[in-house]
């Protein structure tokens, strides 16, 4: 498995840093294969792969939870699962899909693809990148501990509205820690996301290849940058909100405690100040992926590149000013309601601009209907439908009717499945050949697309109607005389079709990973730098740092071969003169520090403060060793590809 992920053997040789006298504790590990190499990895491609695998695992867990929900709702007055289990299922379905599936899957692409697109050999802080992943895993474990302990899973909804999170409402027995697990899990995930995003911001701004000006960045990289800014600016709001809940639960404060003068509505404001930008955190990477795929398979450059980038920025910016549209029915007063209505409607403008630019890209293109393109076109259509129902919500009077009904459920599944998930599935198909050197069969890829597409629409389109007819969200069953029976049955059948589609999709992926057709580099005739390297990419990504002369850098290279070859020879000679390619060494301490966070958080949820302090001590030890372990790093001397000269000039 190691071999197919990153080709460790490369043509050329490796030069170790001269050994100082160091004890084993301060010597950085250099395993290239095996479990240790994964635990200590700092390679952005491996970290991206780890993110991807974890995200897909939790995607399936969240999907199973969704099927439980749909089974329960298939017929009226069903008792397939209890009301309590139903609450746990919808809470964990949303939390899992948002924080443990879509966000890390986007992070997988940020990690794997973004450095390749900017011509970098790693991110700015490789160990911190590993730390962000291990912290993500710690948060995911904390959130899902409820499956295995008496307290059970969190059950107050992913939004955790006060006062549902108070001890009075959420603790079924003394020491019930399901809500504490949710609070700590999200807290740890937030730290992970912020650390990862700070790293991406520095990487994109500071590690671009020579000539790669900001307005030449691939759109996916742009969207990575915007998403990272949204994360670092919106997560602090929920961090504080969760701190306040934690203080309320553990130390008796009154932040959301009405009896002491607390205002539960404050939670909603803080939560949605985070929660609405979070929606764009989920969709902007998807838009970036689509902006890469559509031009590639339309054989045209992206239509209106600057305006697509600018629209992304405007969406991100406006995203901070619309949070209260989630709260139109709380009675904020007419002025606030009108202001948030207008701001929300304004967001439709940059989004619409993007849609038109994608259509402009397709227009008169030489369309190649490959699997990634199918998913991308599905995205444009389905996301647009979700956008239309979104505009309906933006009008406060209409929203007052739709609030907390299945209409809203239909809306956000259109933007999250039809939007984010379709784009991420498209991205997996698109970059799979680059990551693993194999290609998914077109027949099976397209089949899975059509099954997913059909299942998705059969599930969620009818929910619009049942929602407008008044069926409430988050209610574990309904009476048979409401006129909702047939639609719910159809939706459940659709959900299983969607499940089968996803199963086919992943079965085909796994098959392809082991047995798929091997292909040469650049199978789609791409235009961005990640396609200029062999597949799977070598550990050091680029033998020679690319020099960028145009927006579609690799396209330019293809059409100016002689000029580029001469330039590459020159840059290679310069690199060699500076001692070769510098690569970072692996490290144990990111994973050790994350383990400290994990144990500390779990002890804290159990009200075991000695254990929590013990966890902090591990964190301190990990961070201390992190800073004093050897600087590490080694140099590579690649020789010209295809040559067998394994030991060229030193």
């Amino acid at each position, binding site marked *: 498995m190691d071999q197919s992920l990153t080709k460790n053997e490369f043509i050329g040789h490796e030069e170790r840093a001269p050994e100082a006298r160091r*004890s084993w504790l301060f010597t950085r590990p250099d395993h290239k294969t095996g479990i240790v190499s994964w635990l200590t990895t700092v390679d952005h491609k491996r970290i991206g792969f780890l993110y991807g695998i974890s995200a897909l695992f939790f995607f399936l867990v969240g999907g199973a939870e969704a099927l439980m929900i749909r089974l329960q709702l298939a017929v009226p007055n069903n008792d397939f699962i209890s009301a309590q289990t139903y609450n746990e299922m919808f809470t964990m379905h949303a939390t899992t899909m948002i924080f443990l599936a879509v966000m890390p899957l986007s992070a997988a692409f940020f990690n794997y693809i973004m450095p390749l697109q900017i011509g970098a050999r790693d991110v700015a802080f490789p160990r911190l990148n590993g730390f962000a992943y291990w912290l993500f895993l710690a948060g995911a474990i904390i959130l899902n501990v409820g499956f295995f302990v008496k307290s059970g899973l969190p059950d107050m909804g992913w939004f955790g509205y006060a006062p549902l999170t108070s001890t009075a409402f959420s603790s079924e027995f003394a020491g019930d820690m399901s809500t504490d697990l949710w609070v700590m899990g999200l807290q740890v995930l937030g730290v992970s996301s912020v650390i990862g995003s700070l790293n991406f911001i520095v990487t994109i701004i500071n*590690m671009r290849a020579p000539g790669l000006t900001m307005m030449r960045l691939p759109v996916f990289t742009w969207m990575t940058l915007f998403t990272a800014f949204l994360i*670092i*600016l*919106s997560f602090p709001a929920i961090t504080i909100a969760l*701190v306040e809940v934690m203080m309320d639960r553990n130390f008796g404060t009154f932040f959301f405690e009405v009896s*002491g003068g607390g*205002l539960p509505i404050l939670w909603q404001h803080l939560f949605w100040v985070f929660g609405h930008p979070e929606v764009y955190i989920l969709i902007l990477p998807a838009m970036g992926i689509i902006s890469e795929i559509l031009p590639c398979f339309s054989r045209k450059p992206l239509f209106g590149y600057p305006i697509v980038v600018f629209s992304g920025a405007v969406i991100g910016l406006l995203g901070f000013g619309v949070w209260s549209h989630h709260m139109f029915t709380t009675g904020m007063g007419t002025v606030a309601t009108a202001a948030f209505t207008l701001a929300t409607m304004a967001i439709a403008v940059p989004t619409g601009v993007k849609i038109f630019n994608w259509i402009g890209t397709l227009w008169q293109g030489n369309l190649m209907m490959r699997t990634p393109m199918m998913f991308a076109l599905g995205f444009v259509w389905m996301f647009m439908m979700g956008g239309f129902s979104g505009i309906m919500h933006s009008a406060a009077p209409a929203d007052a009717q739709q609030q907390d009904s299945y209409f809203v459920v239909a809306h956000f599944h259109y933007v999250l499945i039809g939007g984010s998930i379709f784009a991420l599935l498209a991205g997996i198909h698109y970059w799979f050949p680059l990551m693993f050197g194999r290609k998914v069969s077109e027949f099976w890829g397209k089949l899975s697309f059509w099954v997913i597409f059909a299942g998705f629409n059969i599930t969620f389109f009818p929910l619009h109607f049942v929602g407008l007819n008044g069926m409430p969200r988050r209610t574990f069953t309904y009476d048979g005389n409401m006129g909702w029976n047939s639609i719910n049955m159809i939706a459940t059948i659709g959900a299983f079709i969607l499940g089968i589609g996803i199963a086919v999709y992943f079965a085909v992926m796994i098959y392809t990973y082991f047995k798929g057709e091997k292909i040469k580099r650049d199978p789609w005739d791409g235009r961005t730098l990640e396609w200029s390297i062999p597949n799977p990419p070598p550990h050091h990504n680029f033998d020679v740092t690319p020099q960028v002369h145009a927006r579609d850098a690799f396209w330019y290279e293809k059409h100016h071969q002689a000029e580029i070859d001469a330039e590459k020879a020159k840059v290679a000679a310069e690199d060699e003169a500076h001692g070769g390619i510098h690569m970072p060494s692996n490290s144990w301490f990111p994973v050790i520090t994350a383990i400290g966070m994990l144990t500390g958080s779990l002890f804290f949820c159990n009200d075991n403060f000695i254990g929590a302090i013990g966890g902090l001590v591990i964190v301190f030890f990990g961070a201390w060793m992190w800073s004093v372990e050897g600087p590490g790093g080694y140099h590579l001397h690649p020789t010209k590809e295809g040559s067998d000269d394994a030991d060229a000039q030193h």
Partner: protein
Amino acid sequence: MSSTAAAAGHIDHHHDATTTTGIPHKKLFMWAFLASDCMFFGSLIATHLIYRLHPPVGTIDPRDIFSIELTSGSTFVLLMSSLLMALSVNSIQKGNVVTTRKMLLGTIVFGLIFLGGQVYEFNHFVKVGGLTLSNDVFGSTFYTLTGTHGTHVAIGVLWLVLMYIRTFKPADDSAGQGWILRGLFHFLTFTALVVFGMYTLLALIHAFEMGHGFGYYFSHHLPSFTGSLALLGGLFWFAKPRGAVDFGEANAIDVESMGLYWHFVDIVWIVIFPVVYLLEYVVLP
């Protein structure tokens, strides 16, 4: 990499040729983190203000417990610590390790005075003012907000101490990693001094406040007093010159990143002090 003045001026501290923008990675990282931290404190301050605008019936009047003189004093000390921090950045950029150490120590002491003031203030509010986390929503927001700021200051002090100890890393790597163990003991001595020293000072102040004088103080607190002196001596021993160190102009960016954090935490206090303390005295018409 050496501490000698000869190396000074060889590094351009305003342009890093290895990055696209010329800004060092660490500095850019810190700026982005501080942007994030702005939202962090913004949410906390907003929470506090919302509850000041909607106080529950019978809430405590903060003016009854605040001591603006004390808080103004510790605010001034914290701001002056930023001056020392800036001077330490300035001296390490010139490769002057000895001055850097002095300025780092000054920043640490000033930071600790601020923290001591906060400990004293919290103690006073609880014992005299009767304000706790869980008897008034004002207490909830006040302690959480100022406590979070205090935690930031404490993390800054910890970072400063670790940086101070880092300046003693020997340049000669062939001697092995013994310096790390010595650094650990250095750190433990420093921590113990902070704890005992604060206790000693507070006990001394208390003795004078009560009008007991030196005799009473020494008869009751001799062990902690001598212990603090011994620890102070230990700190001097650790600071003894031991040859060239692996800390100099090249580490300026590390000190500068830390400085950015420290200044930011001060700036947050510049917001908190007027908003949380002074605003209470503004009488609206």
